[in-house]
């Protein structure tokens, strides 16, 4: 198990290696067209989200589109043509693409989770820099393979934990939590991603557009339902705890600067009884953080939107930071007994929100309550699409101008505990991590 010091040390070594070893990750002399040549691997929903975010980044040339579904491939073709006025080369198979496209610089991988590792490794070994969606893989060994391939190839591999490049998150961590110690001692963390039943249904597909069964089989799918709904299948994904939870559990580990020492989880098929993965999962992680012990609770529920969507909350002795990609779900609360934050407001670190309405008249219970905390807005509003800053960081690093905010090694160290949530829930047992369970 890695403590904070080792976590940060190893992370910085990994980053430094990438920077020192490759001032620019472009091919020798750069591309002939002066742009970064990009292959889009996987053009489903998430591939399209990433493409929209990249469409605002200058200096990119979308050269190839690879997807096994004609509908997605044609859609990728249309999007590239609409944006850049040229027709990209189209491929069903990534091996054929890598064989024929000799001047690619970058692959953007947004395929189903069980394909992340093979596709990333193939691209890195072919000399491309890779941006791959999270979760790194559906298996911890698949994720390990990605780290090995990145370090073996000397190429860049950024994992799509886009909060790592979100200014609200970086500002909060760097300035408020680390520099100003605004939370005091963080003692608990709480997070959730809750979705209503109506938002958690199977994805339907127009049967007229089905993929040939032989092609589906070749690429690991039994049928179109599995192809569209791979998130529900144990051999193809990690389920909601990795699909949704990975974003927020990454923030837990990133902000605390260490890995947890144990996990205890509970899950069940409470509503979607036919699905292979749990539809509701709750997990408790314990940390020995440098500042002291921390307990963290996380829930991902696909059966209710209760509790206001998705956020992470860092609860300390002097204040609580509640942070989310949604500004409406982000705020910071000062404990009544904490030192004044007026200087932070004066210096521009915080914006105070109007005082909450006074509580209703005493009902005999109020005397047991703590005084209501003051509420402050978290600065760092994102005016771009959510994934854009993370992609910008990736492409700037490809040009040798920055370092990656979430390379595969950082991502692995943060994601590793997530792979043990489902086993804990299945075995109904607390897992105390051995170092080998969380290391590459």
């Amino acid at each position: 198990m890695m403590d904070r010091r080792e976590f940060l040390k190893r992370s910085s070594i990994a980053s430094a290696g990438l920077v020192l070893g490759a001032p620019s990750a472009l091919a020798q002399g750069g591309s002939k067209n002066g742009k970064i040549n990009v292959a889009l691997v996987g053009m489903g929903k998430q591939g399209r989200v990433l493409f929209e975010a990249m469409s605002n980044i200058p200096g990119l040339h979308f050269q190839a589109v690879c997807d096994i579904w004609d509908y997605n491939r044609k859609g990728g073709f249309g999007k590239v043509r609409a944006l850049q006025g040229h027709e990209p080369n189209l491929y069903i198979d990534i091996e054929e693409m890598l064989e024929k496209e000799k001047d690619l610089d970058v692959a953007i991988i947004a395929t189903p989770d069980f394909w992340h590792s093979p596709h990333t490794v193939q691209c890195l070994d072919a000399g491309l820099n890779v941006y791959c969606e999270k979760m790194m893989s559906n298996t911890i060994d698949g994720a390990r393979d990605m780290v090995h391939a990145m370090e073996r190839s000397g190429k860049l591999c950024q994992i799509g934990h886009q909060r790592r490049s979100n200014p609200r998150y970086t500002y909060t961590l760097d300035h408020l939590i680390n520099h100003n110690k605004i939370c005091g001692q963080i003692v608990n963390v709480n997070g959730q991603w809750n979705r209503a039943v109506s938002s958690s249904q199977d994805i339907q597909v127009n049967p007229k557009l089905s993929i040939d069964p032989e092609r589906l089989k070749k690429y690991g799918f039994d049928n179109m339902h599995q192809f569209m709904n791979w998130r529900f299948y144990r051999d193809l994904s990690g389920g909601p705890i990795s699909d949704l939870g990975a974003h927020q559990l990454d923030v837990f580990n990133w902000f605390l600067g260490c890995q947890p020492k144990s996990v205890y989880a509970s899950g069940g098929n409470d509503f979607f009884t036919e699905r292979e993965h749990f539809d509701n999962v709750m997990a408790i992680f314990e940390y020995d953080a440098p500042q002291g012990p921390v307990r963290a609770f996380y829930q991902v529920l696909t059966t209710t939107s209760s509790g206001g969507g998705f956020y992470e909350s860092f609860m300390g002795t002097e204040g609580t930071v509640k942070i989310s990609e949604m500004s409406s779900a982000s705020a910071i609360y000062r404990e009544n007994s904490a030192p004044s934050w007026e200087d932070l407001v004066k210096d521009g670190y915080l914006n105070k929100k109007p005082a909450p309405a006074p509580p209703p008249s005493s009902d005999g219970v109020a005397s047991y309550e703590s005084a209501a905390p003051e509420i402050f807005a978290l600065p760092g509003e994102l005016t771009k699409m959510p994934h854009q800053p993370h992609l910008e960081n990736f492409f700037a690093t490809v040009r040798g101008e920055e370092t990656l905010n979430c390379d595969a090694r950082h991502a692995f160290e943060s994601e590793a505990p997530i792979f043990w949530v489902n086993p804990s829930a299945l075995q109904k047992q607390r897992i105390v991590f051995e170092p080998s369970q969380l290391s590459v």
Partner: protein
Amino acid sequence: MKTKLFISLGVAACFALGSCSKEEASSADGSGSASGGPGAGFEGGSPLVTEIPKAVIEGSPRPKGMTNLAPETKAFPKFNVPEDATLLSKGKTVTSSDDFPIIGEVDMITDGEKEAGEGYFVELLDGLQWVQIDLEKSTPLYAIIVWHFHSQKRVYSDVIVQVSNDPEFKEGVTTLFNNDYDNSSELGKGSDQPYLETNFGLLVNAKATEAQYVRLYSKGNSTNELNHYIEVEVWGKGE
């Protein structure tokens, strides 16, 4: 796009629901999403009945900063049509200002499929774009229903619905719906309200206007700058 809003999708997950249900409307609650809505329809007629796709919401937040949105449609509007009303548009030829749709084909617009999943919508370029349905002959039209994209709480800009007997829409054009409040599309200022996309679509009263062609405009939406259609139904006088 008049109001740009980047909605966090978070992850790739988008979820759709299953089959259609046949629905006739419940109450006046579903106003057709326009100012005043389509009204009650034709006196002495019977309620328009169509297949309503099941509700699908990706979980995206409601668009912000729009103060003039019509109330969200909660049910298909009760709208009477004459007894001879029939669905004229199914399978009819569709053309578009965008010769090369980005995703899908324009014939999806009249194929009768209204689901919110993958492979049901056509995506057109950004900016003002139109699609046009050729009904093959001029006939009195009673109602037009349009589903742009209903798995997110989106608002499409400059939704304009026109009918004409001129395929070029240069003469004899009747505008049935127009929410281009500032005339940014230069087709005339409209007074209808912008509305949230739902599985009930937008029902427009065609007021028995005789026409062979139906043209629908839009100019981006609150999630991105592109234009989308899942289905358009044109109801009018049958044989």
